[in-house]
């Protein structure tokens, strides 16, 4: 029953997403929807760490940033086509996650949080100061989006469709991971690391694989980010960007598929749409967060689900 309800929910969401280009009155709104879904991929990737692995990270924007810079740099300065730039960016982002994983997974809890924060700041510092490579605070601009598989991505609707497709792929991949033996192991290391070790599992290796897959999907978000804004600067891998992703996960509900997406949409709408009408939108963002956390401590999506169940009973 609940499985059916959840399937129905997903089907409705998919139809709504597919209808958006026809409903929204202009490319501007479609652009906002695109921004929200791009950042939703980042939030989803972070949720692999938080929801499945129980590891909160404050440096997750590093993978988004590294791969976004890689796309921008290879496209702009080396003249690579998108077919080469994208795999390179994904590889570089994943490699960064491997290195960070080795360093950060030595610690748990607060220690892990602090190491990821520090690593994220190192990347930000490099982006800001290594001017020859990154352009410093001026960042790297790209002229235009590429034409992929005959799709001209400079068309807002085409780009939106691609972003939707990537988001869907991310969702399916994470769902599969969730329901795989590896996902179960990851949850096991989250809840009972000692028992897992007793059972003969290599806890570190399981966490490492979880960490690197989170990094990979973060890099996917980075590729989309670079093509979405056509500009990459140090703010792409800054602490506020990492913290925002964390907020999205916590606000929407960690450990659910819909949660990070919902969180990404709510925060993007407040940041871009509501902020046009309300000067103190930061305060509003804070209030929203406080209200959600106090009324629905598990986040929006689990909160609304249990509320609907309660109403039905």
């Amino acid at each position, binding site marked *: 029953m609940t499985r059916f309800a959840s399937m129905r929910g997903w089907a409705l969401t998919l139809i709504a997403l597919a209808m958006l280009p026809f409903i929204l*009155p*202009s*490319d*501007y*709104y479609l*652009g*906002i929807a695109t*921004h929200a879904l791009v950042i939703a991929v980042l939030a989803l990737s972070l949720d692999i760490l938080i929801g499945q692995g129980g590891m909160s990270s404050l440096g997750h924007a590093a993978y988004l940033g590294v791969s976004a810079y890689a796309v921008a740099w290879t496209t702009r300065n080396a003249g690579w086509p998108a077919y080469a730039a994208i795999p390179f960016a994904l590889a570089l982002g994943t490699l960064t996650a491997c290195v960070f994983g080795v360093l950060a997974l030595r610690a748990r809890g607060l220690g892990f949080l602090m190491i990821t924060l520090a690593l994220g700041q190192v990347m930000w510092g490099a982006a*800001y*100061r290594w*001017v020859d490579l990154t352009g*410093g*605070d*001026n*960042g790297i*601009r*790209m*002229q235009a989006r590429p034409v992929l598989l005959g799709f001209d991505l400079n068309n807002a609707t085409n780009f939106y469709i691609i972003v939707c497709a990537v988001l869907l792929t991310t969702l399916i991949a994470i769902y599969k991971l969730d329901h795989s033996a590896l996902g179960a192991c990851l949850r096991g290391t989250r809840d009972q690391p000692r028992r897992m070790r007793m059972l003969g599992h290599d806890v570190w290796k399981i966490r490492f694989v979880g960490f690197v897959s989170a990094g990979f999907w973060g890099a996917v978000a980075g590729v989309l*980010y670079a093509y979405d*804004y*056509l*500009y990459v*600067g140090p*703010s*792409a891998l800054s602490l*506020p960007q990492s913290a925002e992703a964390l907020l999205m996960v916590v606000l929407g509900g960690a450990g659910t598929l819909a949660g990070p997406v919902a969180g990404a949409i709510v925060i993007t709408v407040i*940041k*871009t749409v509501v*902020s*046009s*009408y*309300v*000067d*103190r*939108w*930061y*305060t*509003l963002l804070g209030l929203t967060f406080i209200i959600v956390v106090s009324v629905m401590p598990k986040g929006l999506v689990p909160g609304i689900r249990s509320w609907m169940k309660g109403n039905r009973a």
Partner: protein
Amino acid sequence: MFQLSRRGILKTGLGASALTLTGIPARAADPLRIGFLTVKTGPLAAGGIQMEQGMLAWLKLNKNKIGGRDVELMVADTNGVPATTRTKTQELVERQGANLLIGPLAAFEALAVADYTEAHKMPTLGLAAFDEGTQKGAQKYFARPTSSAGQASHVLAAYCYTELKMRRMAVIADDFAYGHQQTSAFLRVFEDMGGKIVQKILPPLNAPDYGTYISQIKTNLDGIFMGFAGSNGFRFTKAFFEYGLGGKIQLVGGLTAMDEAILQQTGEDAVGIISGNFYTPSLENPENKAFVAQMNADYKADPGYYACGPAIVAAVLDAAITKLGGKVDDPDLLISTIRSNTVPNTIRGPVKFDAYGQAIGNIYVRKVTRAGGKNTNTVIKTYENVSQFWTYDPAEFLKNPTYSRDWPVAKNLEN
């Protein structure tokens, strides 16, 4: 509790949004729709709010009219984040149907939206002082009535060499593009004239304390050039005096090192500091007197670097749109009129434009004086019709790299 930031909220907010989306050509009776990109949240908010105040004060003085048309000012808060700046720019252009844009505040924001505004043929009046905007990356639909990063530094270097007879100087600046470009411009002119920059110190933008940097400063210097932004000029000067160097070495500053926003806080320590700028609130022209009075009445503050920019932009726009009889539908005509106009009466004095969209105008060398407990940046010398290329040939100038951390190379550093 929350302030609604738009007059147009009813029109654009709810059901009627479709009307404004399609970009219906404006009739003369329609208001002039100006998109104003500023920063009202985050670390850059102090300057961004002053920017908005300057615009509002000018509009109030001029009965909310530019070029004979009522103005609908659409203020967007970019949060000082390039990605948000881009989204907000799209909103102003595509959803709100802006006729033109003013801003944004920071160089990296301006760079993030440059390709977009060009592609959409959106006339943009820039405020951010970065050399790219009007040099190597010069844009067609762009004009900057304020200054490039290096424009005032060139002047100040010449002043230090010829008038103050300085020969050995140090430069200290925030370690980001704006600081680099100011110092590099200073270094180039100073060394081309025969002076020597013997020390170059670049503390990070958010340096918690300047003590370690001040202790490195040589003692046998004629002067120190400061390329600081935000409150760093104030913080450096305070520390400079705390370490007992105050009054021993002459301090000179770029555009924002002794900005009005921090001038009163700096107190007596500021007295005697020389700086170069395209504007100063003590200018005697009637437009400026009225503007300063309005700023003092509404916000109890003298306009500084951030507040003066929009007032200069507005005057430039006013002249161009008046000339066009209020018509702004043709972006090519609007930008070419802005660029070909000479405006005699902005608050900074006369303004005209070079072929790259950068204003040619007065640069003032100012010295802080103190009377009745109030500091003033008093003009001690005016350089008229200063180009962003100083006395260099533009074509030759543009063959060189853009001013940066590493160019021009400081050849005379002593360590």
